[in-house]
């Protein structure tokens, strides 16, 4: 009986986390656009506009290129599925998510990567020049991000003696000194650079451009429309919230529900929303005052991220 209750609670927590991220993703996009508009002196669209856009897209007819294969249709689905899977098992609202024992940082990153790779493949699948161009640029950036990300995780894992995500968050609550350690700080700085690059934000990619030839992420999804496009926008925004959620919980773990109970889960959600909104708004402010780097300068930025992670790992080892 106790076992069954436990399983039910875990399932509910997982569903709750996925629902929060699914609604929160588009809202975060709306918030970031709003912050940007206001700082530029424009009124801007309401914060829930991305949700309205999604409703419109899901109601639209599905159009697929004549010569595309099943890969094209699978791309958006896999993207959303991978984000949903990692969201369910990661310490976002609760520090003890379902299947927490197997929620490994390395595994989570590679599951997310599956979505990116399939999206790149589906962009190639259309056979258009833009799809290929976007995939090539996106994979180049991905290849430069991965080493930085892996070393950053390694740095945190060495310091905490585990790469288990819930454990990494819990260790922050029980031993706050870990968070203040150079290893964790350097690794998280590197993690943030990777998040900006992977989610196509400035200065790496301009999410609001209409210039086909400068696009990275947008070039890959040019052929998508209707519900397929809706899934991609949903998946991408969920991924951003998920990554930012992980970032804030690794950096400022307080507020995460570390024991069962509706009250604690509710507080955990409030804390997560507050922290993610703060980071998202900060990124939006940063984006207003920056510009898009020349494509060939990106390796310098991402190499910087790698160096930060490497230094983090070194300080963790020599401690």
């Amino acid at each position: 009986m106790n076992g069954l209750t436990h399983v039910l609670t875990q399932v509910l927590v997982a569903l709750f986390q996925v629902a929060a991220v699914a609604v929160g993703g588009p809202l975060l996009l709306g918030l970031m656009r709003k912050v940007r508009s206001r700082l530029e002196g424009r009124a801007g669209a309401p914060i829930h506009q991305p949700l309205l856009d999604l409703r419109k897209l899901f109601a639209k007819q599905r159009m697929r290129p004549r010569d595309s294969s099943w890969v094209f249709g699978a791309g958006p689905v896999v993207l959303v599925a991978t984000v949903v899977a990692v969201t369910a098992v990661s310490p976002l609202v609760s520090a003890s998510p379902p299947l927490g024992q197997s929620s490994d940082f390395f595994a989570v990153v590679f599951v997310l990567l599956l979505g990116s790779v399939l999206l790149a493949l589906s962009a190639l699948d259309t056979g258009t020049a833009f799809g290929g161009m976007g995939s090539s640029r996106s994979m180049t950036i991905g290849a430069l991000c991965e080493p930085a990300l892996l070393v950053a995780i390694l740095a945190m894992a060495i310091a905490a003696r585990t790469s288990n995500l819930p454990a990494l968050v819990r260790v922050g609550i029980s031993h706050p000194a870990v968070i203040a350690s150079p290893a964790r700080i350097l690794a998280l700085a590197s993690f943030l650079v990777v998040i900006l690059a992977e989610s196509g934000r400035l200065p790496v990619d301009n999410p609001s451009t209409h210039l086909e030839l400068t696009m990275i992420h947008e070039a890959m999804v040019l052929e998508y429309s209707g519900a397929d496009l809706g899934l991609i926008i949903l998946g991408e925004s969920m991924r951003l919230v998920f990554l930012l959620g992980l970032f804030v919980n690794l950096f400022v773990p307080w507020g995460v529900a570390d024991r069962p109970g509706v009250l604690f889960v509710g507080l955990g959600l409030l804390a997560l929303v507050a922290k993610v909104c703060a980071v998202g708004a900060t990124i939006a402010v940063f984006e207003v005052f920056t510009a898009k780097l020349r494509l060939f300068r990106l390796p310098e930025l991402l190499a910087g991220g790698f160096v930060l992670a490497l230094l983090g790992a070194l300080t963790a080892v020599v401690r």
Partner: protein
Amino acid sequence: MSHELNMTRLLSERPRRAVLECGSDELIESVARLLEAGFRLALVGARHDEAVIEIVYLFVDGPPDQRIELRVLLDARQPRIPSIAHLNYSASRFEREMYDLFGVQPIGHPQLRRLVLHQHWPRGWHPMRHDAGPQPSMNADADAFPFAPVEGPGIYEIPVGPVHAGVIEPGHFRFWVLGETIVRMKARLWFVHKGIERLFEGRDLDFALNLAEKISGDSAVSHSLAFVQAVEEALGVEVGPRANELRAVLLELERLYNHVADVGALCNDVGFGLANARALTLRERLLTLNDSVTGHRLLRGGVHYGGATLRTLPTREELEDIATQFHELVALARSNSIVMDRFTGTGVLTIDQARDLGVLGVVARASGLHDDARVSQPFVELPASFHRVTRDVGDVLSRFEVRCDEVDVSLRLLADLVSREGPLDVRGDEVEIREGHGTGIAEGWRGAVVHRVHFGPGGILSRVKIVDPSFFAWPALPLALSDTIVPDFPLVNKSFNLSYAGNDL
């Protein structure tokens, strides 16, 4: 022999205006001598009149303003003319245009391909000939454009347009790319060719002026001013200094709102939306000012035959306030190191390339050429504070800086113009229509706009030839792209900001 004497006299006396009848056999030598004497080929236009096709080559130089026309008459049944493409690159394109529209065969042209008419237009049908008849049905092979093949390991092709993701005019760009580096780019234009020159023919002057304002929406003043000046020259209408001051005010107001928008758009193209938002606010202020000056936000209706009519003039205080706002915008863009990094060294057009192609306006001045029709073909007295803005690198930054400095020069010129006393409504006498021809040149914000009009017997408007500076500058874009990477193309293109409507006509 007589022609030889004339040319020698012409080059020594240098009259303000001259028309030289020229035989086909003397053309190449005459053109060579004019180009050698420093003249610029500003316009080549054909006109079909019953049994003959008249070709006019307009050469200009200045200051002082000199315009020499070479006139060649050809048999309309078999019009053939020696090509001067080897002397002047722009001429090769004018010749291709005449070949498409009039069926004039340039003998010895190195690359006689279609220019204006796309491949689906039927062969042998030349729409500007008066005996062309109704439009025949189109061929289906709309895609058979002869792109030069670019081959090699790792080279791939990116076709872009004519329909783009943003709301812009149609143009097709074909890139051959190695990795991200552009090996070659070819622009295919004339998707908005609407036969606007033909639309002028036989119309009354009011209709024609209205049409001239709409040749290129962002250049309403430049095109209408060049057209009105050409008509006034053809009909012998004298325009007083006050009317010209009012016209100069309009020309500078047009330059202001376009340059300000371009400065913002260049920042926007590198993802610096903040500067663009500021620029659009300032542009809106200028459009509102335009509205109060002429009653139209894009300055239509201000210029008319024999004069100009304004409702108000901007005050000096307002101009100073605009200058302050603009300086803040430029300082904001300049303070961003990523923006400056993206601009610097990107899309270089050397001075030799610009000169060889006959590029005009902002693009030419950013590469180090000095030509500015406000100085070489002046119609208003310029204050001492006026100077031509040039840079010598020819990259995106140079074109950005030329625009920024030209805004300053324009504001100072405007401040001087609005302080001169006089009425705001200057109207000439009733125009008497008669046979004749004339040219008009106005330095629009892109560069010199040239119009040539011809009134036939009975004063019928029988030919209008329009040359927008974009016609000269489009071939320069692929040159500026060598060694540029694909994601920088939109930025380079925006720094040129050429007109499609003005080019395609």
